[in-house]
């Protein structure tokens, strides 16, 4: 892929994530999306950069904050918005909502709203990949808070012990809901995981193409060695933990942090990058317009779609 094509694809992912989230912020007060939303604004470059380094066959596992992951792994946008609207055409017919999104057909297998609970599932998936001698890797995304859970360490141990092809992606925003990392951790994450013998790389860049390059190296290493790799990437959560609003007024963090991080906003960085490598304003606009249109159309379809019949309640419990 050419540099220009790659950067355009990255921008499309990042822009779509940002605008989809902004669309949700616009619609949410109408109370047509009756599902708690944990928005991905600020997180885009981590998700898009890593997913850009994965193939369609590679699997990803996420958290309750997985709108970005769904979009970056190219899940169906109509089914995404329909799920948020709770409609039958949603990815899980409205049963999953925002917190349990998945798109197995595009490799986004599952997500969990209980912190760290998805991590061992991803480890088991990596075991299955190795067991079946398949040529793919598994990436699991989780926040800094997840590293405080016992199952995180259990999973790290098992994946290193059994040499499994898994990419751990710790998205460190220094907050677990409203609790700062300094009040929660007696360790620093990259230093604490290193003794397991895992490759670790830590960075605080918000540049999508830099994260893509980092992730690409990690994924190549996993494919070459069959061993796990740990990425520790910082980002800033622009909005409240759950919901559509800013919450700097509550005093647990300060607006200055936002100003600093917003100076390196992923969307702005990638847009500037496109211009710098010679992609015209017109071409960028056409990428943006296509994304805007797609979001608009998907929202429209979701709003008009029917809810599941109530007998759907009893479907999909057992196979």
């Amino acid at each position: 892929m050419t540099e220009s094509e790659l950067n355009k694809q990255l921008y499309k992912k990042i822009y779509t994530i940002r605008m989809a989230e902004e669309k949700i912020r616009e619609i949410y007060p109408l109370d047509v999306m009756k599902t708690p939303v944990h928005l991905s604004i600020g997180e885009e470059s981590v998700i898009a950069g890593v997913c850009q380094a994965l193939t369609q066959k590679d699997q990803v596992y996420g958290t309750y904050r997985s709108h970005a992951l769904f979009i970056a792994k190219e899940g169906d946008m109509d089914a995404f918005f329909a799920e948020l609207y709770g409609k039958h055409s949603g990815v899980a017919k409205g049963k999953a909502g925002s917190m349990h999104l998945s798109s197995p057909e595009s490799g986004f297998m599952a997500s969990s709203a209980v912190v760290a609970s998805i991590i061992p599932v991803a480890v088991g998936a990596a075991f299955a990949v190795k067991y079946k001698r398949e040529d793919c890797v598994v990436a699991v995304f989780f926040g800094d808070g997840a590293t405080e859970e016992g199952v995180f360490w259990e999973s790290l141990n098992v994946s290193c012990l059994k040499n499994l092809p898994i990419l751990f992606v710790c998205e460190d925003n220094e907050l677990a809901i409203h609790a700062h990392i300094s009040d929660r951790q007696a360790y620093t994450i990259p230093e604490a995981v290193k003794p397991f013998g895992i490759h670790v790389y830590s960075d605080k860049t918000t540049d999508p193409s830099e994260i893509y390059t980092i992730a690409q190296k990690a994924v190549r290493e996993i494919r070459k060695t069959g061993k796990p790799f740990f990425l520790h990437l910082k980002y800033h959560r622009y909005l409240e933990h759950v919901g559509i609003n800013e919450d700097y007024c509550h005093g647990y963090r300060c607006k200055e942090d936002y100003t600093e991080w917003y100076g390196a906003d992923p969307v702005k960085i990638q847009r500037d990058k496109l211009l710098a490598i010679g992609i015209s304003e017109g071409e960028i606009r056409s990428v943006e317009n296509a994304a805007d249109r797609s979001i608009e159309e998907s929202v429209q379809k979701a709003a008009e779609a029917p809810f599941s019949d109530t007998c759907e309640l009893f479907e999909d419990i057992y196979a």
Partner: protein
Amino acid sequence: MITITYREAINQALVQEMERDPAVFVYGLDVADHKRIFGTTAGLVEKFGPGRCFITPLAEDCMTGFGLGAAINGLRPVHIHIRVDFMMLAMNQISNMLSSCRYMSGGKLKIPMVIRAIIGRGWGQACQHSKSMHSVFAHIPGVKVVLPTTPRDAKGLLVSAIRDNNPVIVLEHRWLYDISGEVPETDYTIPIGKADIVRKGKDITVIAVSWMNVEAVKAADILQQKQGIEVEIVDPRTICPLDEEAIISSVKKTGHCIIADYDWLFCGFSAEIAALVSEHCFQEIKSPVKRLGFAHTPCPTTRPLENKFYPNAVDIIRIIEDKLDLAPTDLSGEEFYSHENKFKGPF
């Protein structure tokens, strides 16, 4: 038919299914050590290699999620816990993940996973090596719960569990491993969700779970000989899904219902059956439903208290005497089961 023990029956089911389907693998603490989970995993690592039968770190929570991840990718994991009490460390994965993952995917994912766990009384095992917990598991939609009593059921139900496309929890009482019984020589399955009428009778119904079938059969033998009473014993075998029809029709026939559960009574499986009987047999029932199970205490260690904690054949006999207005049965000369005096079968 051939006669084998319960432990051999489980071992045969594992060997047979691992031979039949390369997607089946077995893992857990102790599965490949010299004791091999009471002998039930004997020979697996030698026959199938450490890739398909392996011990794990002491990480029950993680290894349950691990099984889920493998299962949604087409494998058929069999995870084993040497005591059900250790499985409590995996309750997050069981109740939040394993049970709900298919539902949350809108039916796109299948979870063909088996969890085997050893339950019940041993010898001074105290409160953390002795539970059953089947009522708790059965409370959660999305999992199936199986408690085989005979070698035939142990093999046939484990084969069904491994072939099932859902999470199935198989609970095995450790005293059952020594019992012998007839098993078909050819490939067979016992369907999940079908009760067994262990013994036919017209006077009173005992719904017995797992080891309590052994106690109920002993009680029924004594009452038949000494009081001429015909006890009907129903082993649900799988408590979720439950064969409601078998229970209802037995209670309608006899008009009396005793539930001999192997768990605590409060909010438990026995209460579920009592409710079922009340809803469906209200016209036919001649006496109130009676339940017996664990004392509502943690399990103690010392033998006199342990004897009081677990229900047994004598308890069943006394309840039946009470219900049917019988004079006390002379139990002198009767031998009952204990750790030292194990039941060896056949049923």
